[in-house]
């Protein structure tokens, strides 16, 4: 659902209203969402409901673990499986079967592992290097108390507005999930993502 982070549509050099970033569809935690392809272009529906959450490393480190098997994480009352992070690549290490690096997004650092099964995997990882800003989509995993990402997509940031956009989305999701969590305990209050959107709805809104 949060595939809006792929392409930032702000005007080049223009004064895009930050509120306009939140216009349009809202995120409803109960909805099934699509998991974007690695290229960021086509969107395919994967088996089972997966919610791609834009998060900061800090949010991941602060996440609690589910009680059952300790391998799942919870952020703002929502179980987290697939995440999107944006940050700088560090300590890239290429091995035969995988590529590892540290992602530093300014709020923390986390280890990322990208398995290189296909030629396209190697090609993708060959396009990014230490110091580059990258967009990472992958699964959040925990092992022996340490959290890391198993990435299925690592893309170079070419439009630096994507970085701003990502963090704004993280904040938006945080507020939206917190509101949904609160409304779950207060049935008379309906979680409405559009209340977070300050901009008025467009006149030509299509239902």
């Amino acid at each position: 659902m949060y595939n809006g982070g792929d392409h930032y549509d702000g005007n080049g050099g223009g004064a895009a209203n930050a509120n306009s970033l939140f216009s349009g569809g809202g995120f409803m935690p109960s909805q099934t969402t699509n998991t974007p392809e690695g290229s960021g272009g086509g969107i395919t529906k994967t088996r089972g409901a997966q919610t791609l959450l834009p998060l900061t490393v800090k949010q991941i480190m602060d996440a609690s673990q589910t009680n059952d098997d300790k391998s799942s994480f919870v952020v703002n009352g929502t179980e987290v499986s697939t995440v999107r992070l944006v940050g700088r690549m560090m300590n890239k290490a290429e091995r035969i079967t995988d590529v590892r690096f540290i992602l530093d997004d300014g709020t923390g650092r986390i280890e990322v592992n990208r398995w290189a099964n296909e030629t396209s995997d190697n090609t993708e990882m060959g396009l990014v290097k230490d110091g580059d800003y990258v967009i990472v989509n992958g699964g959040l995993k925990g092992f022996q108390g340490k959290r890391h990402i198993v990435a299925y997509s690592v893309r170079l940031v070419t439009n630096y507005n994507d970085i701003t956009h990502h963090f704004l989305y993280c904040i938006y999701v945080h507020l939206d999930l917190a509101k949904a969590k609160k409304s779950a305990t207060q049935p008379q209050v309906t979680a409405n993502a559009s209340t977070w959107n300050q901009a008025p709805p467009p006149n030509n809104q299509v239902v």
Partner: protein
Amino acid sequence: DMDMDASFRSAIVNGETLKMFVGQRVRTVLKFQHTQGGVLVGQSTDGHQLTIRGASEGRESHYLEVIGIADNDQSISAETCKDFDDNFDADAFNGLCKLVVNGKVKEVLL
């Protein structure tokens, strides 16, 4: 342990919020204006003039991301710099800076 080490975190700031993080690592994007006496002078996204010491790069009419330690409310000692091209949305970044220090959401980034 990397998980617990917060020493490398940086707060996203603009000209106004920089003063809240003096002595700490900060991250900002500013528009390159000129260099003088070995320092780089740029304009923050909220119109403040900031001085960057030890800047490694800076291009005319380009934006520059600077990560470093805030010396005072107007100056940063740069650790890393990165060219952020000329089509950066200053307003969106500025909005983000204001949200970062908002009590309701600061736990996301700080």
